[in-house]
C-alpha cells in the first residue's frame, strides 16, 4: 500500500532571495510531479518538519517546482537556511485548483499582496499559457515597500513585456513608496479604484494576508462583484493535507480537501474566516 505520508525526494537547485523575509526555493523532484494552479503541497525539511505551500512556478513547468516562503515560524526558518544540493521532500498535490474551466471567456482580475503573490504567479503563468481562452487579465499587485516586493524582475520587468503581446495589464502599488518608485502608492485595494472592467463577465482571484483579503473582498463587493465571483486562497494550520487531521477546518469545510480555493460565497458565514 502506498504510504500517503511518503514525500517525493527533491534536490534544492536554487535559493532566490525575493525580499528580506521571503525566499523562493527551486527544487527538482526525483519523480514526476504534476499539479494544477491553486493546489498545494506539503514541503518537508527532513528532521525539522512539514508545512503547506502552494507552488509558485508554472504548472506547465516539468523541470522544477518553486515554493515561495516567508520566514514566519520554525519550519519556514529552516527552509530559509536551505542551500543548493540539500535534500527536501514534497507530497501532494492536494486540494482543489482554481476552476479555470469557469474562467473561460472572462475578464480575470488577480489581486495579490505580499507573499500572496506566490500562488497567483502559478495561476498567472497557467493563464498566460492558454491566454486565448480568456478575454483579458488585470493583475493587481501590492507589497508593503518596494524592498518587500517579490518577483521584482518579473512583475516590474519581464512580465511588463507581456502586456504588448497579450490582453494584459498590471496595477502595481506599495503601501509606502521610496524615491525611486514609479508606480502607485497605497494599500492594494486602491488598485481597484476606477477599474475599467466588465464586472458581470469577470472573476476575481485574491491572495494575501488575511487582513488584505478581507478588505479586498469588501472592496470587490462594493464595486459590484458577486460573492461567487470572488475566489479566495485560504490558509489554516495543517498537518496531513488529506482530510484526516482536522486542523484546517473552516466550519465543516476542509481547507485541504474542499479548498484551499473557495469562493467568498462558500465561506462567508463560517466563523473567523479572516483569522
Amino acid at each position, binding site marked *: 500500500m502506498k504510504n500517503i505520508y511518503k514525500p517525493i525526494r527533491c534536490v534544492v537547485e536554487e535559493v532566490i532571495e525575493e525580499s528580506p523575509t521571503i525566499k523562493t526555493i527551486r527544487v527538482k523532484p526525483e519523480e514526476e510531479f504534476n499539479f494544477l494552479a491553486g493546489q498545494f503541497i506539503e514541503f518537508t525539511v527532513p528532521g525539522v518538519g512539514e508545512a503547506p505551500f502552494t507552488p509558485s512556478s508554472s504548472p506547465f513547468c516539468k523541470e522544477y517546482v518553486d515554493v515561495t516562503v516567508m520566514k514566519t515560524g520554525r519550519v519556514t526558518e529552516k527552509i530559509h537556511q536551505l542551500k543548493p544540493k540539500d535534500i527536501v521532500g514534497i507530497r501532494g498535490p492536494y486540494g482543489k485548483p482554481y476552476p479555470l474551466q469557469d474562467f473561460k471567456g472572462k475578464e480575470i482580475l488577480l489581486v495579490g499582496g505580499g507573499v500572496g503573490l506566490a500562488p497567483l504567479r502559478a495561476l498567472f503563468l497557467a493563464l498566460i499559457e492558454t491566454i486565448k481562452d480568456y478575454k483579458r487579465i488585470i493583475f493587481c499587485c501590492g507589497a508593503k515597500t518596494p524592498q518587500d516586493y517579490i518577483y521584482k524582475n518579473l512583475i516590474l520587468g519581464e512580465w511588463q513585456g507581456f502586456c504588448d503581446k497579450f490582453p494584459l495589464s498590471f496595477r502595481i502599488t506599495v503601501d509606502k513608496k521610496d524615491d525611486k518608485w514609479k508606480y502607485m502608492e497605497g494599500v492594494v485595494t486602491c488598485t481597484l479604484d476606477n477599474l475599467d472592467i466588465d464586472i458581470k463577465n469577470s472573476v476575481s482571484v485574491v491572495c494575501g494576508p488575511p487582513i488584505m483579503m478581507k478588505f479586498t473582498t469588501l472592496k470587490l463587493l462594493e464595486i459590484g462583484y458577486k460573492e461567487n465571483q470572488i475566489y479566495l486562497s485560504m490558509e*489554516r494550520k495543517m*498537518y496531513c493535507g488529506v482530510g484526516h487531521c482536522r486542523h484546517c477546518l473552516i466550519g465543516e469545510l476542509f481547507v485541504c480537501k474542499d479548498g484551499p480555493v473557495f469562493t467568498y460565497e462558500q465561506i462567508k458565514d*463560517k466563523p473567523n474566516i479572516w483569522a
Partner: protein
Amino acid sequence: MAETETYYITKKNWENFLSKKTNDYSIFGPILIEGNLHYEKVSQLNIENIIYDKARPIEPLKIFFFPFKEKILPAIEQFPNLVIIGAANCDLKGLEILDKVFIEGDYKDPNYSKRRENTIVISIDCQNPYSTCFCEPIGTRSYPEKNFDINLTALKDGFILQLGSEKGKKFIEDLKNFSDVSSELIQERKEIREKTEKIVKENNKFNFFNKIEKIKGLYEKEYWKKIKDIANCVQCGSCTSNCPSCVCLLLEDIGDKDYFKKIKVWDSCLYPGYARMASGASPRPSLYERYANRFLCKYWYMFENFGTKGCTGCGRCISGCIGKIDKRKVLEELLK
C-alpha cells in the same frame, strides 16, 4: 450468510477455545482492576477474569487501531494478529467513524488499514450501563447490530455467539461444542437488551436526537458563554483522548538531514495551540470558540464530512472530565 449465524456456547467451552487461541493471537479483554474495567492482555492465567456482562471498558477501542503515538513514515510493516474482546456498541460505532476517516476516503492511513485487517473484534451486549452513558438518546443502539466480527451476549453460564463477518467465521472454524440457539435463548437476549435500553433511557430524560440539528450554525461564542459549566473546562484534552471517535492528529518529523521519518500523535482541538498558525493567529483564540468547535465537529461537521455524527454516546467525555462538565447538561442548555 455469516451475519445471521447464531450459536450457543457454554462459558467453559468458550474459555477452553480462547485459551488455545492465545498461542496464535495477541488477545485483549476487559478485566476489573480496582473496580474499573480495563483492557488487559489475556493469557491462560486470567482468561476466567474477562468480563462480558458489564459495559464498555475505560479505554476507547481506538487505542488498538489508532494509538496515542506511532511511527507512520516509514509505515509499520508487521502487526501482531490481534483479538479484542469486550467492545460495546458505542465503541463499535466509534470504529465505524474511524473507518470512514482513515480508510474509506481517497487517502488510506497505512497503519490503520493494516491494524484493521489484522484485528478481530469480539463485541459484547452492554448489560450494566454507567450513569454517564447516553447511547440511545444520541442514536446509538445499546447492543451491537453490525461492525463486529463476533458478538457475545453473556447469559448465566454461557453466551449467544453471533457471527458478523467472514473474519469472525474463520476465527471460530475450529470451535467445537457449540449448539443451535433456541427461541427461548433469543427471547432471553431480547430481554437483556431491552433492560439495558430502558436503563439508559431512564438515565437520560432529555432527548438529544430530535434536537441535535439545532446546533447547526451556533459558531458564536456568545451562545456558549451562557453555559456556566464550560468555564470549568481546563482544556486538558481528556474528553478528546477518551473519545472513541476523535481522530485529530498531528505529525512530527523525527528524521534527519537526508531521510524522512515521521510520527503521528493524537491532538486535541481544545488545546490553545491546536489551530494556531505560524503567524501566531488562531481562528479559535478563546476557550469558548474551541469548546464550540468540539461540539460542532461532533454533531454537525462530522455528519457533513462523513455522513455520521462524531459522537456515540459512550459518556467517557463526561466520566473523564476534570472540570466535572456533563456534556448532556451542556447540550440540554444549548438546545432547549
